[in-house]
């Protein structure tokens, strides 16, 4: 039987925040599109943090859902044996939210305000 190399994987750690930077607790984050992956959703803690692991190397789009907010999205490039950081901003759907009306997302390999260098997965 021929041997088959198993795909390398990495992980992503992210923060779900309002557009003014406030953490959103109990948001659900999952992969909207990307390579084959475990179909589990991550929940955010009080600091808005979530972690998704076991992702094959490739480009993913993450989606965050939380009550009172429109879905937020972020693209992220998963790197083998590394943990990538991402930040997902969400716009509130109710009046008087602290949102500034913009929706944006960014990701980078380590090095943002939440992390140091890339992590070993």
């Amino acid at each position, binding site marked *: 039987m021929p041997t*088959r190399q198993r*795909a390398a994987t990495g992980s992503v750690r992210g923060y779900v925040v309002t557009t003014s930077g406030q953490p959103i607790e109990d948001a659900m984050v999952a992969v909207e599109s990307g390579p084959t992956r475990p179909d589990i959703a991550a*929940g*955010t*803690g009080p600091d808005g943090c979530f*972690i998704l692991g076991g992702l094959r190397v490739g480009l993913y789009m993450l*989606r965050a859902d939380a009550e009172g907010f429109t879905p937020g999205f972020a693209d992220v490039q998963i790197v083998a044996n590394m943990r990538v950081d991402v930040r997902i901003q969400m716009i509130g759907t109710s009046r008087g939210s602290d949102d500034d009306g913009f929706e944006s997302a960014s990701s980078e390999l380590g090095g943002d305000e939440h992390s140091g260098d890339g992590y070993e997965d």
Partner: protein
Amino acid sequence: MPTGIMSPKKVTALQQTFARYGASANGESESVIDDTKKAEAGQESTEYGGDETGGESDAEAGGESTEGQEETEASGDHTPVSNVSVQSSSSSRDDGGEAGGDESAQEGILGDIVSGIGGLFENVEGWDESAAQPQESTAETEARIDAFFASNSETGNQEFFGALIPVFKALAPVLINLVTKQGGKILQGAIRQRVRQRVLTTAPTLARVLPKESSAETGESGLTEADIESLVEAATALESVIGHDDRVQITPTNKVPWNRICLLRIRSSLGSYYYGTGFLIGKRTIATAGHCVYMHGAGGWASSIEVTPAPDDGAMPYPKTTATSFRSVRGWTVGKKRICDYGCIIMPQGWHMPQPNAFAYGVLSDMAIQGAKLNLAGYPADKPRNTMWYHGRSGAKATKNVIYYSNDSFGGQSGSPVWVKKNGKRTVVGIHTNGGTTANSATRVTPAVFANLDAWRTEGGV
């Protein structure tokens, strides 16, 4: 001879394909398990002869994997493991007909399932069965698609097209007919833009191999703007939910089989939270994905899982309960093998649903699975919180340990049941684990998986 389960003789006649129904009596259970073990040895070179032709290979499909480790079954992969010390289960069972719900064993069910290709989708209001049939391409179509891929191999664009082949193969019916409008899903700009760029780049080649059925003016690409928009819409949709999003919400959820499906809120040992789905297979046993109970990269065994049977938006027909006793197999916890991605939750002593109610599970042949209408339901994270969603599709592909299908799923549905309904009886044939671009997939109920589910079901009381 026990009643309600196929006799060993019949089992042999049916190419050693088995099914197990929840409410069978003691002697029946033992008999089936023995048969299953016999079958396991014999199937390696026959029924489960390593057909890896469909979808991605098991190894490629692995969400959790280890570099350089090949994903083939090894001795001990299906050895059960637990996060708590487990007393060996009693050999005497008190089935008593309590579990099993409407899947109580009935003579002849197995034969019907195995020989009767097809089955039924669930009767769900709003569900459009006509949309669930796979679109078949003609021989002429296939030839054009082959020419398309061959042409692109010659242009030296292999790397680029290599990445696109799964998408375009999946898009074949759309490409050929140029009439399919995959609407209804608002998609985000970033990926849509990338897909659009890909389509525009490939448009000249596509135009050479596609029939011109449109009379509208075409641009430099040879395709009309409407053609391109259709392709972009379809390709982008395929990046997530496969094709048109025609999932249907289940409400109310307090009816069979929906009230067997549970929302899981998982707390990892590191304190992070995850969401998944599970389903009752016994009085206190909830089957789910291995990665819902043991998370590589998140501390291993879950610390606790909050189980809520059949939540329905704001309504909670049944109370939520926190469980701390979990099971999986070494092939998952140690081997990280996608083909071993299954496990279960044993609910606390005293926990029970108001009425006995559990899914049956069974080992079906490749043919039976591939010809069946597969049902899938769970709690996707892209839908309103605590809402259950259903999707049905036929045309699955079964490999030795994995079932690939186009039933839509989303994060949060790991652990959902994948079942066949035949003559009013439901049999779970897979545990949903993975989402993907070209196919979603489940850990298949093989004889080894079956044996563990059976043991765990017994452990939780049947």
